[in-house]
């Protein structure tokens, strides 16, 4: 296996050498030449990191001379780009969602309380959603949202010390695909890692599935997927294949899709 050479005790080693490999909590990663990085913990999605500053993403925290790993997973890195000094993060197979500002999620409305809806997003606390946070909503023109409805929205407030808050409009007040998700269709849960994989640009899984037949798909960063195809049977097939993708290699997946296509 790949990690035999590295001491299990996580004796500090250079972050560069560990990219793409499994890192374990407690491991220290050295960052040569990034000594100017401040001790502040920055989120991957933190708006506008200063030029040249390294961002410490999920699963990592600053400490010692570099980064400390807090989650088990694969170390990822995105090189310096426009205005950013590069990003390190840990890709892990987590199932429980923790709200992050800017994430698009699928929530279930659990209660109406005055001017806000309470939405279950799978985190430790229910998110709040104002009835004004829908496209075209005004004090008079309330959106038609019922308890039990599915909501596709985005977090505008998400930090550990505050109740998370969702909206269904973008910064220019447009729905941009967000809002109440229509009737029927099928909602199910997968691991957060799979969602991230599916959301990656030109994801092979989606392309493979696209060969089967047309269907609607909503992916929430909180591990929830909503699918709707022409018939219930088709919906279930898509859902089942997606669920199974969790543990399949690309080869196996192609086989399964081919099998379904045959019929």
């Amino acid at each position, binding site marked *: 296996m790949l990690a035999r050479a590295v001491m299990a005790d996580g004796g500090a080693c250079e972050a560069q050498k560990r990219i793409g490999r499994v890192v374990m909590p407690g491991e220290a990663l050295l960052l040569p030449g990034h000594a100017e990085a401040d001790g502040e913990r920055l989120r991957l999605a933190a708006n506008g990191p200063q030029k040249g500053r390294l961002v410490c993403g999920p699963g990592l925290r600053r400490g010692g001379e570099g980064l400390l790993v807090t*989650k088990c997973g694969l170390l990822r890195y995105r090189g310096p780009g426009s205005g950013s000094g590069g990003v390190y993060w840990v890709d892990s197979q987590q*199932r429980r969602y923790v709200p992050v500002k800017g994430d698009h999620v699928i929530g279930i409305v659990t209660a109406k309380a005055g001017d806000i809806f309470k939405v279950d997003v799978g985190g*430790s606390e229910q998110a709040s959603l104002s009835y004004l946070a829908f496209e075209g909503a005004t004090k008079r023109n309330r959106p038609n949202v019922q308890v039990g409805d599915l909501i596709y929205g985005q977090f505008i407030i998400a930090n550990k010390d505050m109740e998370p808050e969702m909206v269904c409009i973008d910064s220019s007040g447009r729905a941009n695909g967000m809002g109440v998700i229509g009737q029927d269709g099928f909602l199910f849960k997968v691991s957060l890692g799979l969602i991230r994989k599916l959301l990656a640009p030109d994801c092979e899984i989606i392309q493979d599935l696209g060969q089967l037949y047309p269907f609607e798909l909503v992916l929430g960063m909180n591990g929830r997927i909503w699918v709707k195809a022409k018939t219930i049977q088709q919906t279930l097939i898509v859902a089942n294949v997606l669920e199974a993708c969790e543990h399949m290699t690309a080869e196996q997946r192609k086989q399964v899709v081919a099998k379904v296509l045959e019929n």
Partner: protein
Amino acid sequence: MRKRYGEARGWIGAMETEQKKCDSGDLPSLRRIVCEQGLLSRPDGSASWMQGDTSVLAGVYGPSEVKVSKEIYDKATLEVMLRPKVGLPGVYERSREQMIKKTCEAVVLGTLHPRSSITIVLQVITDAGSLLASCLNAACMGLMDAGLPMGSLFCGVTCALDADGNFTLDPTAKQEKEAQTVLTFAIDSIEKKVLMSSMKGTCSVEQLQQCVAASQRAADTIFQFYRDSACRKYSKW
């Protein structure tokens, strides 16, 4: 067609368990370790841990909603439930729960998830010696699988001393019964310090230090196993 598809899933399912299982082979001085992560679908993280014939199943939930009465404003509320193989948990289980809980609290970065709850449920499947150590290991693997932020890892090591002062690592139930002293430690992965210690029987100070040193060495093997197991889990990802 639906039926056919069902078949396909069954085949995928079988393959999955086979691939996910990680096997330590025969490690020097420790019994054979087998661990499988993420085998339960309901909890946020799960692990089954076997060392020798001792087997413990861990399910981890969190960070999830917390009861108002147990809410802590600046950190997560951690709870451990230890279920014996048969019967209801008693005072013994409660005291071990407390030990495991405080060990986990020392490594889990609870301040990152204030006002939430983290629950670890440990179900004893078989007890064939070194149970507390197995529980600790299962809990750590479960926490890792749940992806909860941790400052370091920990592992449990049991050490048995016989009347002549010879020690056995990872003793079986029989060895434990015959031993004069049975010591269990939780060792952290960064500096190999002692996080938890529990003792049955009496021993001298020198013997204690000997056992600490031996456990620290054994911890390396277990941490390497943790890593191999994680590598295997992520290899096909």
